[in-house]
């Protein structure tokens, strides 16, 4: 007998000018102790489904048809759709019989209450505060793998790391021992090693509490690791459902096939990603009309020599890692795509900003090579900086925040040319048309504002803007991490075409190893402001030498259920602690380490003490 059984569920959202069908006849069954993964792109209705079950749809959402039957104990069932959204009967079930955890633990926890008081509130709310509430809170927190529950309980959400926050969130959801846990993208906002730990925790808890988990995700790797069954949603309808491994191995529905084909997988870089809605750009042959001053292919174009950057810690802040760069030496080669990978706080974005001269290094120097000479960025005069800025361009992570909403696309694309005084006005507009075609957008849309474009299209505009000056180096800071899988595939394919068609040098910053593998020729793995491993992509993914790289690779949930995440490689949460790496990798204190060539062009950092 199933715990949760949904039949014919239809949900609509009222929007200006009509309604949107978020769910259009969903059937679903979930048995105790089972994990059902709901998979789909954004807009597929998967979050609406989760919120419908909890009956916490936003004010403009409405269940128009169908039933949600939940077993509420001793075999009795209630139809949640028939209960009053604000009534006591439903409130008794929320939190006690069914609980939910959310994608962003930072914003989903109250900013003004301590973690402990938020968890204890569940106990008093559902009449379970018979014993010592503080003790119960500490017990459940330590069960979540938190080593110092007292401190965490008395902390506020912003004082904790992402992993701790999500653990606290799970503790809050599980303290009343619900039968159903709805997890809405529970690991999407987390680093890959933290994600692996949270997934392991959920598995353990499920076994212990005989918990039914409804997992909402777009990450098929996560599905493979913990789901028993999968249901694929597209535009509010079920496309395919069945045992997880069957669907991943042998998808029947074309949409499922397409979705799986859109996801970059490590070791499959030769297979072109299958974007669900492919839009092909036609790269104009004359993208590089500017005289090229870049060094010959393969020769260094930008070199970093022992570069360090420190940020002052805020006064009185509890031990926060400063995202500093600690003695990085690196040569960017003309025409290559260098992937920089690391977890949040590893310093990868700081490194990118140093390369752009958006930040000045505290120590060391950065040299820019052109016309056979090399010039330190710090020694450039205004004229040289101008030329340098035209040679190195940036694509931002957030396609929504990085385009001026009050400028038309034409203005956005011609402004860089205008600033650098390149070409006449008609030529600039002609160039803008070329750029639009190059990134696969309709040139007739030049007069529109960013508002008229989707996230993926905006990111194309961002790339077009960066290309406007025909730079020699393109720095991409997490260019696809804010995008949906299929849009991500489009952008990755576009970048790959660009790379193949031009002599551009790419610096590609990402936390996603699979994305890096799809594009990068060489990969630099960063941890705590240091490059710990630097190798050609293939060598790195096949033959990683550094313990941190190994941990990162082990933490990636693979599509193949048989290859479970190797938790021993995660080193119990110590993977990113340089002092805990075994010799010769151990880095104590501020030790910058030194890169040693362990194989051809393959470097790892050894401790120097």
């Amino acid at each position, binding site marked *: 007998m199933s715990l949760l059984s949904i039949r014919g569920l239809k949900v609509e959202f009222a929007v200006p000018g009509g309604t949107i069908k978020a769910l259009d006849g969903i059937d679903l069954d979930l048995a105790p102790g089972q994990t059902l993964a709901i998979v789909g792109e954004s807009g597929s209705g998967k979050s609406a489904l989760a919120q419908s079950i*909890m009956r*916490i749809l*936003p*004010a403009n959402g409405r269940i128009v048809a169908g039933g949600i039957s939940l077993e509420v104990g001793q075999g009795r069932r209630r139809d949640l759709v028939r209960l009053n959204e*604000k009534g*006591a009967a439903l*409130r*008794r*079930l*929320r*939190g*006690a019989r069914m*609980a*939910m955890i*959310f994608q*962003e633990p930072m*914003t*989903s*926890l*109250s*900013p*003004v*209450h301590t973690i402990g008081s938020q968890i204890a*509130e*569940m106990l008093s*709310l*559902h009449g379970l505060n018979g014993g010592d509430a503080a003790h119960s809170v500490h017990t459940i927190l330590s069960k979540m793998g938190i080593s110092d529950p007292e401190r965490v309980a008395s902390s*506020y959400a*912003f004082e904790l790391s992402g992993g701790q926050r999500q653990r606290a*969130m799970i503790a*809050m959801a599980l303290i009343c021992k619900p039968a159903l846990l709805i997890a809405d993208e529970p690991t999407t906002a987390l680093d890959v090693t933290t994600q692996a730990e949270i997934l392991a925790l959920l598995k353990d808890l499920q076994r212990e509490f005989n918990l039914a988990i409804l997992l909402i995700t777009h990450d098929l790797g996560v599905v493979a690791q913990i789901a028993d069954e999968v249901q694929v949603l597209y535009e509010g309808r079920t496309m395919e459902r069945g045992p997880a491994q069957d669907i991943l191995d042998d998808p029947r529905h074309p949409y499922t096939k397409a979705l799986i084909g859109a996801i970059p997988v490590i070791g499959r870089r030769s297979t072109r990603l299958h974007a669900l809605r492919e839009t092909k750009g036609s790269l104009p042959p004359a993208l590089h009309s500017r005289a090229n001053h870049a060094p010959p292919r393969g020769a260094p174009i930008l070199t970093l020599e022992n570069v360090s950057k420190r940020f002052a810690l*805020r006064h*009185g*802040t*509890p031990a926060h890692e400063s995202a500093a760069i600690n003695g990085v030496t690196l040569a960017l080669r003309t025409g290559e795509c260098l992937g920089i990978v690391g977890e949040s706080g590893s310093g990868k974005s700081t490194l990118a900003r140093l390369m752009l001269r958006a930040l000045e290094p505290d120590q060391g120097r950065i040299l820019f090579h052109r016309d056979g000479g090399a010039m330190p960025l710090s020694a450039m005069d205004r004229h040289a900086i101008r030329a340098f800025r035209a040679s190195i361009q940036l694509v931002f992570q957030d396609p929504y925040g990085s385009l001026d909403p009050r400028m038309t696309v034409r203005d956005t694309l011609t402004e860089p040319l205008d600033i650098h005084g390149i070409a006449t006005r008609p030529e600039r507009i002609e160039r803008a048309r070329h750029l639009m075609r190059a990134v696969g957008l309709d040139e007739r849309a030049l007069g529109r504002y960013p508002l008229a474009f989707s996230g993926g299209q905006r990111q194309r505009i961002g790339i077009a803007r960066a290309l406007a000056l025909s730079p020699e180096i393109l720095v991409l800071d997490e260019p696809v991490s804010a995008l949906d899988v299929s849009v991500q595939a489009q952008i990755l394919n576009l970048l790959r075409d660009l790379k193949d068609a031009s002599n551009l040098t790419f610096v590609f910053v990402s936390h996603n190893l699979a994305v890096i593998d799809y594009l990068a020729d060489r990969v630099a793995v960063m941890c705590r402001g240091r490059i710990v491993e630097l190798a050609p992509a293939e060598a790195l993914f096949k033959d990683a030498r550094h313990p941190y790289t190994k941990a990162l690779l082990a933490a990636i949930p693979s599509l193949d259920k048989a290859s479970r995440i190797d938790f021993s490689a995660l080193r119990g949460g110590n993977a990113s602690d340089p002092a805990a790496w075994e010799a010769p990798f151990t880095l104590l204190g501020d030790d910058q380490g030194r890169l040693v060539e362990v194989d051809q062009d393959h470097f790892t950092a050894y401790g120097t003490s």
Partner: protein
Amino acid sequence: MISYIIRRLIGAVPTLLIITAVAFFMMRAAPGGPFDGERRVPPEIEANLRAAYDLDKPLWQQFIDVRPGLCAMRFGELTGSRPDADTLAAQGLKGRELRLPPSRPGGPSQTSSFLELRDEKNLVVRCLGGYLGKVLQGDFGPSFKNKDFTVNELIAAGAPVSLTLGLSAITVALFIGMSLGIVAALNQNRSGDYSIMTAAMVGITIPTFVTAPLLTLFLGVYAGLLPVGGWEGGRLENIILPITVLALPQIAIISRLTRGSMIEVMRSNYVRTARAKGLSEFTVVTRHALRSALLPLVSYLGPAIAGLVTGSLVVEQIFQLPGIGRYFINGALNRDYTLVMGVVILYATLVILLNLLADVIYRLLDPKVRYE
């Protein structure tokens, strides 16, 4: 927290000094003087008047005077003899004991116009004279226009009236404005919301010099329910109308602010979490939403209270209330230098203290700010 408050208070000292100096010199830069408006007096009498109020000295000396031996000179002027500093010290006289004769019979004796700097033997070695010297001793000097009254006396009489009005009005406005704002937010884009926000818009746009006579007309004259003016020791009947008039625009602003931040917070992820926990809507609003929603309000309240306490000029004038606002206007128009200076310094101090209070409350409400 305590060290934060102390740091802020220390930081306020230079601010106040600068405000005092700027106000002093701007006041003097304005054309005209305190005795211009009176009927013509013979030049020698005007010269005497100016000398009596120190107006004959160079401007900077009127503001601050640190000439050595000043105490002795001044002491000599008062007593008729002219002892030097050593003699003064030998007599064991301290600056504070240099009392000027009362300005009117039975009035308080005025303190000396010096702040003494003493050496290690507690002897006066240098005096700080001029306006600043007096103010540092808490003496705002005699009023130029309200003869026989010191500015301190005028402020002491007027400040309680203005404070009572301002604080009562903001309390009323907070209570009503917050409630209306929350109701509007919870009924967003429904009739309750629209009617409250329309009323609020009207409340913001109609100035107090319109609402005050209208309310007086209807409630005071036609209905005869309330007195139309006067203070009468702050009787409840007398202050209802002025407080209402003062509170109305504040209610409007506070309700709009509360509504805005409340709507934003009610859409936030942690309110969704609170609902998912099974909390009742009442608890969701009061315990989880309100505290964060109040933060923008707190930042508004500091300046708002200061504005209300000090900005009730119009209301005080219309209802004939003896608050300080009246003195401020009259003083400015008549070039009553000391009175205006006294009120300016009082206002500045109030604004600084109330902003500090708002920041302290903000820190108590938002744990994140405590670390910054």
